[in-house]
């Protein structure tokens, strides 16, 4: 039922299966098009037999600004997963995993040291999913989110910055084993 291919702007007219789901955020047009303009190979979709988009991943390639070169929080050239979503009808088929793998192929092709992403620290399902794909927690960004997904008494939530090393990181210098213990401030994340 699915085809995997690079995003095309026309796909924005076929997003309803993904974006009418309350768990998926809809962005301004410029946001999607910026990703397509700058990093087209990191914007992949899954479509059903009728051309409806049933999953997509958006990513970018970047490093921290040079001014932070000597900061301990400096991020070298890497790919970042900005959004990944799968329509309710297409879940439990490994589409999220396939999309992520395709982004990793593009990350390797672009010589990235690692792929990283942010996930809510209470989103155990997503954390388990990413761990199964070789991602590990690199650091905890305290109070990164301005709300809490499960506890209404709290108004912030921590994020896990998770990473997976790519081929360029031969010596695995950009991941760490006990990332849960490294806490940083949201201001340290660029």
């Amino acid at each position: 039922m699915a085809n995997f291919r690079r995003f095309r702007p026309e796909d924005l007219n076929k997003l309803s299966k993904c974006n009418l789901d309350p768990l998926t955020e809809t962005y301004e047009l410029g946001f999607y098009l910026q990703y397509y303009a700058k990093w087209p190979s990191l914007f992949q979709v899954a479509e059903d037999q009728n051309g409806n988009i049933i999953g997509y991943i958006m990513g970018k390639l970047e490093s921290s600004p040079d001014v932070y070169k000597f900061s301990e929080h400096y991020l070298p050239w890497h790919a970042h997963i900005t959004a990944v979503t799968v329509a309710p009808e297409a879940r439990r088929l490994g589409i999220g995993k396939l999309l992520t793998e395709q982004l990793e192929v593009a990350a390797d092709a672009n010589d990235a040291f690692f792929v990283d992403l942010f996930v809510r620290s209470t989103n155990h399902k997503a954390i388990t999913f990413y761990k199964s794909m070789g991602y590990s927690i690199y650091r905890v960004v305290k109070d990164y989110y301005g709300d809490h997904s499960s506890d209404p008494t709290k108004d912030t939530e921590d994020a896990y910055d998770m990473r997976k090393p790519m081929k360029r990181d031969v010596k695995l210098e950009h991941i760490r084993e006990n990332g849960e213990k490294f806490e940083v401030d949201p201001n340290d994340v660029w």
Partner: protein
Amino acid sequence: MSFYGRHPRPALKNSVDVQLQTAFSDGNWPSVIRLADKRFKSLKDPYYEAIKISAESQLDSAAEKCSVLVAIDALVKSKTVPDYDVLELYEWAARDFLEDIDYADTLGPLRARWVKANPKSPLAVQCLQSCLEYWDLVSAQQISATLDKANVNTTDRRYMYWSVLLTFLLSISPQCTENSRKIYSLLALKQLERAADITENSPKVEPTDRGLLTEEEFYLYFRVLRTLGFKEDYLNRLESPKLGALSQLKADRKVLFWESLDVLESWGEWDRIFDLCKQALSLGLDGETPEFYVCDLRIWKKLVAAASKVANEESALEEVQSILNRFIAIKDKANAMYRKNISLALLETTFRFPATLLTPSPDHGGLTPRVIQIGLFLENYYDRLAAFDDVKDYVSQLSFEEAKAFTEIVLSKMLEENSDKTKRVILKALEYKIRYLLTTCPQTLSHHPSVVDGEEQAKPYRCRFCSKLASLPCEHCLKQMIVEAADTHKQIANDAEIKDAIPKLDRDPRLDLSLVIGNALLKLAGLKPQTGDIAPSPLRDVDSGLFLRAVVVLDSQLKETPSDTGLRLLLVKLYLLLGCASYAQQIWIPMDVKRTIQDALSPLFFDRIGSLSPGLFQSTRGLMDPLRSYYSNSLRDSCPLRIWDAFSAGSYSSILDLTEYDSRLRRSSTLMMTLVEERRATRAFGGKLDGDIEVSPFTEDIGDNTELVNKTDYGSFTNLEGSQGPPIQDFVRLGPDLSNVRSHLSFLTEQYLDLLGFKPPKDYKPAKANEAAIRDRNYIIETLARLNNSLTMFLHKSETPLFLTSAEMTYNTVVSLLSASLLTSISTSRADPVPKAVCAIGSSVRSAFAHLRTSFYTPLPTGSSSSPPDIYSSVINFHTMSYVRDTALAMKYSAAFVISFHEKELARDRTGKSSLHKEVIAEMKALDAVATKALMELKKHVQKMKESLGEGGWLDRMLDWVFGLEEDDEQEDEVAKAVEQVIGGRAEAEEWVSKVLESWREGAKGWGMVRME
């Protein structure tokens, strides 16, 4: 650099003194003018004069504001190379005019001139960027060519490809003159051909070489070749071992492969499609790409389709089978998605292969390999949310014997063999959906003679499942299905174990059951596809009791499964049909259709909303603001959004796609719908319009030949209909979908109303009144002639009635006639013979209008199983009512326009020669009288409707209407009971009735506020 909106204020040169710098950055323009003037006089540096002019253009007076335009014009004419900083200053200072002046005739050529003189300057790229921001492709192409020439040996390959790409874009753009188009096409193609040759013939391409090297360069080449080159060249390059689709696939790049399949299909090159797909799939098996990388369902479908079209079909199909078998052998290693794709590929093969090639099965009637394969597929996937959609098209293709075997043997066996209660209800829900689907497939019916034993037969078919006489679909089977589905629903409601298991399932089976019941009731009610020239209301000939039962079942299900968007969208459409726009809005809002998805999804709620419920525009502040602001943000610049990002990243295929997308978005039917709906609602309440629709920045490039595009996304509708018939959205939409024709007609009729409503400013007193009057008259005549030509052209297309409701057709026809009448009236002065056409047109207008009114006021036909209250025919007819009003007002305004013109001419020209004939004036007064009478009548109708809805006792009347019927036939009685059972009894429906009533009252209240004059 400081920012003022989109246009950054440029920094002055460092050499400028602090005092002037400070005044400039503070925006203290009088000081800047004074200081710059002083510096210019003392230093003789023209830069200071430019500062002065730029500062003057920030002042309020028109002359000073325009001084920068004069300066730019002088620079263009001078042919000298301008100073870069002066250009920056002028571009910023002229920012408010840049939408009106042509960048390509002013700043663009100045930028190109500067780059030509300074090709190595890093600022040259800024000039390119500026030209692209104003989408001046001519200057951008010149700049890029200069940059390419100046940077031949650089490792930055973008210069060369910017030049090629811009030459290509220019060659296909309206900005290119016809004489130059061929040269630019050839230039772009030849440069890329040369690059392709270099790559083809070099052992290795270095970054400094001018060959194709990066992924994006390859894509650009093939796109240009496809558009401008010869087919044979494209085909040869596609098979090239270095450039072709397979070599790209080996490098994990799928784009070219995907694109080439579309191109080859459009050329009917099935042999090549077959070879390409076969080789691509073999790459995975041979270890040259990841095993399942190319295992997309589309590739399998193309391979199978191609195999059945090639010369040696039998051998090709054997090859397909062999590849598929190899994948089946390793499918356990595959990801779940690819496993499913392979299973679907097997199904596809079974349906496309000639029966002689399939493994023969013992003769079990309809139990063919096709049926068995669907069964095998469902054994693995029946509990998945997409199971029905996956097999739907295949089930639709089964012969009746196969369909019978599938439902009676395969599905029954699956049910028998499954002892798990929850899984059994999932299977049952799937079974009902498939049975419903089959009722929509014509092969399940046989023709029945129209006369038997001398008696005329009421129904044209005999159902091959139940042997009863039937229409399409079979009513008996639908009723049977409703009763059985309701029983299963009840079984779930009474079983705690199943209910506990539901949250863990992909989908609540009660949702499927309700959808089957709801859809079956809609069909039993007689709902037909709304595909053009429909009766005043789509519900006019529909059994209201059965229709409302469908709605109440679906509404009741929404409480259980509020997050199901398919159900929500269906209900939105049904409530709009029912005249409950405010309730439809309540169901629509939680879907949070916002930002980017509005263009594709907003028509599902907003299309024709002004005609259905103008009151919504009063009760919801800024009802369509999000849509308007979406288009304002997305189409603010003349260039495609994010285009420079794509240029600077070297994403050439993205540039082409962004350009195409931008062009499409500017021609969106949803955009036109937004403008028109807002204007109609504003006028309905006597509000002030923002300006003429023609001068809106969104419509400036729209002419009669512009194709306005409808991209409404129906992908989330749950469509249980067979593929041979129309999808569900065609049944539940108020009328035909958005279209190029309807959008154009709306645009033209709005322009007509703008002309009629034009009032000159109060202080407008032309010095030469007679000359001004002649000019005005000429303008009116020209505009009317243009509008009449365009309206006539669209209305005379044979397919136009298919795109409009009958009310829209009448309205547009009347406006077209009125424009012709006004044109004749105004262009014929008393000095000319009496224009007889005016009376003939007037008669046609009155006749069309009378027909519209008759269709609106005609009571609903009797004879349905339920008797709706009188008010029902009004609430389901809001759309027609709206057009009765709009048509009457168009007549009234037209008459007023002509009479006012006549009176002005009489006052101006005492000889009376330029005023109009008394016959014309009499005709206009007659039109006005008809319209005024109709509007009075409508006002009374609305008042009566409001009063009627305000009366007491509605709750019981409604409940009796929906549930209290004594059904004649036993099966219908069972259906009624089934519905009551699903919604939890009559008492449970009371809340629903209240909501429907409240929504009707709100609708009527809104109509009460609408001006009828």
